[in-house]
């Protein structure tokens, strides 16, 4: 039952939506299913919160590794949630907490990439083989061409960068996208036919 019921729900829903979409039959039914899907998205967020609480409560009870940090996490999560529910997302304190913590932290993590790139440029980007040289040369052209200083000193790098970005990069990306799309289509058909049942793995 645990495996069969989700399978039946998946197949029935998919067949209804497919028929409604391709044959224009009972559009209200497809719309209703869409609405359920949207609401389910919100429910999933709530499940995430329940799961987070359960995992960290267990850690606190067992006094497991970093249990004190679990307390901090739960206090912050529920404190911010309650503040948002009571005062709303445009409240001054609610916005201030977000702008003073999440925003600078996110920007800092992203900025750290620059330091890693600089270190990696020196240590890892080596012309050790023919393939590495093929990667290295366009990379340096694009680095020159995307920076105003490079374009200013060597104007032809701007044109070369445009060509690299417009032709080989787009061609490679199209191939990747086509491959991924075909893969997704086959994966969807497998789920629809019940060969793959990702919803019945029980979190494994």
């Amino acid at each position, binding site marked *: 039952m645990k495996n069969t019921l989700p399978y039946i729900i998946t197949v029935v829903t998919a067949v209804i939506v497919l028929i409604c979409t391709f044959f224009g039959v009972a559009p209200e039914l497809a719309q209703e299913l869409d609405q359920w899907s949207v609401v389910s998205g919100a429910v999933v967020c709530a499940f995430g919160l329940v799961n987070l609480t359960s995992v960290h409560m267990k850690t606190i009870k067992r006094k497991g590794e970093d249990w004190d940090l679990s307390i901090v996490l739960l206090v912050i999560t529920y404190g911010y949630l309650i503040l948002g529910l009571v005062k709303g*997302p445009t409240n001054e304190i609610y916005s201030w907490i977000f702008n003073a913590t999440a925003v600078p932290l996110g920007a800092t993590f992203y900025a750290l990439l620059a330091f890693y790139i*600089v270190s990696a440029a020196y240590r890892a980007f080596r012309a050790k083989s023919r393939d590495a040289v093929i990667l290295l040369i366009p990379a340096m052209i694009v680095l020159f061409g995307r*920076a105003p200083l490079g374009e200013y000193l060597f104007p032809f790098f701007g044109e070369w960068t445009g060509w690299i970005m417009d032709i080989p990069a787009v061609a490679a990306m199209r191939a990747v996208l086509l491959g991924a799309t075909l893969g997704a289509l086959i994966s969807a058909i497998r789920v629809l036919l019940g060969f793959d049942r990702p919803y019945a793995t029980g979190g494994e």
Partner: protein
Amino acid sequence: MSVWEKLQNLDPRWFYYILLIVISIPIVKPWGLPIKIGSQSEAFHEAIEALNPNDVIFVVAGYRTDSIVEMDPQLAVLFRRALEKDVKVVVWGAVDEGAMVAQRVIEPIAEEMGAVYGVHWINLGYKPISDALLQKMIDDFPQAMAYTEMGGGRLDSYEITRDIRTVTQFDLIVCLTNVTPSPAQSILKMITIPKSVPLAVGTTAMCLPEEMPYYSSGHYIGLLGGLRGAAEYELLTGIAGSAIAAMDAQSAAHFLVIILIILGNLGYFFSKKEAKSR
């Protein structure tokens, strides 16, 4: 140990210090280097300029705090230009932090330009993007976007959203994204292609190759790529923002990376040669 071998084993902290200095110089004293405007940014600019007063655009904030350095300048100049042209802006956070991140950028600009919330602009809050939600936006926009508006009101209580029954009523969709899978590609698949609603996209330099195929195929009518794209759009609109100022620092960082790649490779070859001769 030779000089080249010593260079190979340099403490990485030295690179961090050099980067800090190299980036700081143009920030303190900008060089004002000329920026060449690309066709993608020009197309984006033309898409916004083609809008008429009282047109409504749907701006999808599909980026988080990690990419604010590249994405905030794009949103700021877009929002400012839209208000200048009397174009109304409806914002939606398609990813968890999207609505909050957008709010902190556009609210001060709206205040500065005297734009009224609910009349000239609105932030519909966060609702996770999915194909089902996008389909619902086509079928019944108020129901799809219910309960999440930042002010906590109903969409029919605001002048800007009162008459919007479907997402196809928007004159343009602008998706600013830095996440994978890209919200822009979902919007393209669910709304732009079947319903012919024009779509322009802004993204980070890192995600630019992922979006390029859709621009070159004509599906996106404009594309801003990273900080460079924002700087080009600032130049096109004549709105001086943070992107132009940051371009010199980006140039300096790019040059440092190039120098380090050259030095690293020289060190690698010479130390290899020395090892062979020994």
